[in-house]
């Protein structure tokens, strides 16, 4: 890095620092971190409106989309500038538009930047950066889970050249407060399944769109399902070429993999608490001295540390450059296989307290909640089985499963 640039960065840092102090509140560390599987219904309309305002303020200040092109409302600066902003803003209450906010800036925005028309980008990207438009992905369907390309939501072209959408999507995080959905639809069912797909930006306020929260087995409703009944979408809202949806989807999946939740980043090495949930639970049920319980607590701690170190190890390999790009499957499969074990350990320690409790007894109720949530990462975002396929075929180099569905027209395939 040249002296001049370093000077420039330092000047930028001073600007950032001054702007943050003048415009943002300090971060409230007592605010609970978003918990996967927890009840996200706390994003009330008021809260969303407030956070949109905050996002607008950041955008007006010139700190939204720091590395995004200036012609689409970004700042056109470098990753180094973004890192400076991240360092300096750590202590401040940044806008938090929840999971859909992350989807907007980490997945949908970059995908549209890569594949949208100029006109579409000029219209929508600035609004995404200013908090005016929150976008979600409309990808999974009730009939297409692991088989990502098996979507059957249909988009039929009208004589006027627009599109009519029919079908349904599912497992959309935070759609209940979003404005747009980036929706994958089948535009030609007579060609093989990867070839007849197209993406559309769908205003979620359109006639014929119904959004329903999905109540999960733990009682919370983080996800939604969407139904499309003759929803008319302008051809101007198409992202990418007709029939080229799988190319766009692959771009999107790369952004998805990169854009993990920062709250879930690997913890730093150093002293760690011993399975604090389970120690509290064991204390609560009076079993801290029981050798069997102690073995279980230590087992959970081993799981926690091994998952952490596996992620760190894979990250270090990835940084070395030469690593297989599919190594991330290991972390996913480790979570998918070890989380349920850890959740069952809670039940074992809790005994009676893990299945029935006084309403205020959070150690006990958390144990039960963790048991219900224990398989989320075994299923969502690629099941254990899909990870095992990926590892065995793309890392270990074993023969691929015989494909029944790659060369035959979609409408001749067995689907749900």
């Amino acid at each position: 890095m040249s002296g001049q640039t370093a000077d420039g960065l330092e000047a930028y840092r001073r600007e950032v620092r001054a702007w943050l102090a003048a415009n943002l509140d300090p971060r409230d560390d007592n605010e609970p971190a978003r918990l996967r599987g927890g009840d996200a219904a706390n994003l009330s309309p008021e809260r969303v409106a407030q956070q949109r305002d905050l996002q607008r303020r950041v955008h007006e200040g010139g700190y939204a989309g720091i590395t995004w092109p200036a012609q689409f409302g970004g700042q056109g600066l470098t990753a180094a500038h973004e890192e400076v902003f991240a360092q300096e803003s750590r202590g401040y209450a940044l806008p938090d538009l929840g999971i859909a906010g992350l989807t907007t800036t980490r997945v949908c925005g970059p995908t549209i930047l890569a594949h949208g028309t100029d006109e579409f980008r000029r219209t929508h990207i600035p609004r995404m950066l200013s908090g005016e438009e929150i976008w979600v992905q409309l990808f999974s369907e009730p009939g297409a889970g692991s088989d990502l390309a098996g979507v059957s939501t249909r988009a039929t072209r009208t004589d006027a050249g627009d599109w009519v959408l029919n079908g349904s999507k599912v497992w959309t995080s935070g759609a209940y407060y979003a404005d747009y959905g980036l929706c994958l639809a089948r535009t030609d069912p007579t060609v093989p399944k990867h070839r007849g797909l197209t993406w559309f930006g769908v205003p979620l306020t359109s006639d014929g769109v119904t959004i329903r929260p999905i109540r999960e087995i733990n009682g919370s409703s983080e996800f939604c399902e969407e139904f499309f009944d003759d929803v008319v979408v302008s051809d101007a809202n198409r992202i990418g070429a007709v029939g080229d949806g799988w190319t766009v989807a692959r771009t999107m999946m790369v952004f998805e993999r990169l854009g993990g939740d920062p709250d879930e980043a690997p913890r730093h090495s150093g002293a760690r608490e011993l399975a604090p949930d389970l120690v509290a639970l064991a204390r609560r049920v009076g079993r801290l001295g029981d050798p069997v319980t102690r073995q279980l607590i230590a087992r959970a701690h081993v799981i926690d540390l091994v998952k952490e170190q596996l992620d760190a190890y894979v990250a270090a390999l990835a940084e070395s450059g030469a690593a297989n790009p599919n190594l991330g499957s290991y972390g996913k499969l480790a979570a998918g296989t070890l989380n349920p074990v850890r959740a069952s350990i809670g039940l074992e320690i809790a005994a009676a307290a893990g299945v029935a409790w006084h309403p205020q007894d959070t150690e006990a109720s958390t144990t039960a909640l963790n048991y219900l949530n224990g398989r989320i990462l075994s299923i969502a975002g690629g099941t254990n089985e899909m990870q095992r396929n990926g590892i065995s075929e793309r890392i270990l180099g074993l023969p691929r499963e015989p494909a029944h569905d790659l060369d035959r027209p979609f409408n001749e395939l067995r689907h749900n």
Partner: protein
Amino acid sequence: MLPGVTADQKLFAETAERFIRSTCPVSTVRRVAQREEELDGGYFTEIGELGWLALFVPEEHGGGSPSGQPVLDAGLIAEQRGRYLQPGGIVGSNVTALAITLGGTGEQRALLDDLAGGKALAAWALGDPAGGWEASAGVEVRRDGTGFVLSGAKGLVQDAHLAGWFLVSAAVDGRPALFLLPADAPGLSVEPLAGLDLTHRYAELVLRDVAVPASAVVGQIGGDDLGERLLQVATVLTVAEMVGAIGELFVMTLEHARNRAAFGRVIGSFQAVKHQLADLSLAVECSHAIATAALTAVQEQAPDAAELASVAKAFVGDAAIDVSQGCLQLHGGIGYTWEHDLHLYLRRLATDRVVFGDPAWHRERICRLHGL
């Protein structure tokens, strides 16, 4: 479930299933669970008429069992109740009836007619809130003249909110005893617990200096094996309910795998899915087998009845978690939704695993039964 069922038993079980499917199918259980509907009080008099509550009651009090083998008959009903997640824990009523039949006073026996007919329900308060299942757990007894005063708390009492009577286990001078108390006994209160299971409700039974006359004792204090027999019966009936639920959960999952398609094939054609289903079905069959052996041994009061009951609870308790988790995995996202019945099974099984002793408790008991 039992390879050797008689024609009478078969009819009894089929009638039970027919009744459940028409009167209280899982859709109804769900509405009750979600408190959208209260359980129809008539349910208990109807199942009383069907004889489910009379199996351990002598004929002169309106009881009897189709095969003369009440444990096996109750096991058949328990399996059907488990399959369809029937609400209202009746293990407590059955066990209380058995206790009174075997050791009750004349006055106590008067209650048998109501228990047999479903006009009164009883719950057995055995375990303490921390998960111990010894008679002495959780409650202290002091003598007071000819009577007793009970203090403490019992945990995980199944459907205590429906019970008119409680059979309370406790130790008097270190010896196990059983007390039969009306739900309105002064000082006795039912504190509802929140819980994982939505189809049964659980409560803590709190006893604040509850004065109890000597006439409330069932059987002899420390003088017989009544408590042990009740534990065996309650354990194997809980196991039978679990086996019913495990079997139904597996069938539901097998159907899903046969119908759900991905990558142009039904998912049940993928070898990885097939092999998981094979392992799950092995767990189901092993559960059936050990439950059958335990029910039979407890029915026959065989020398290994205590051991087989504990082995069955230990095995089926673990299998319940394995099968629940495996079935959830094979259902994928749809199994994660509230609307799908899968989680009702998952919750019930994780809870039944603990009721009347979790696997670790029964494993330690197995060692003790062998004098270790």
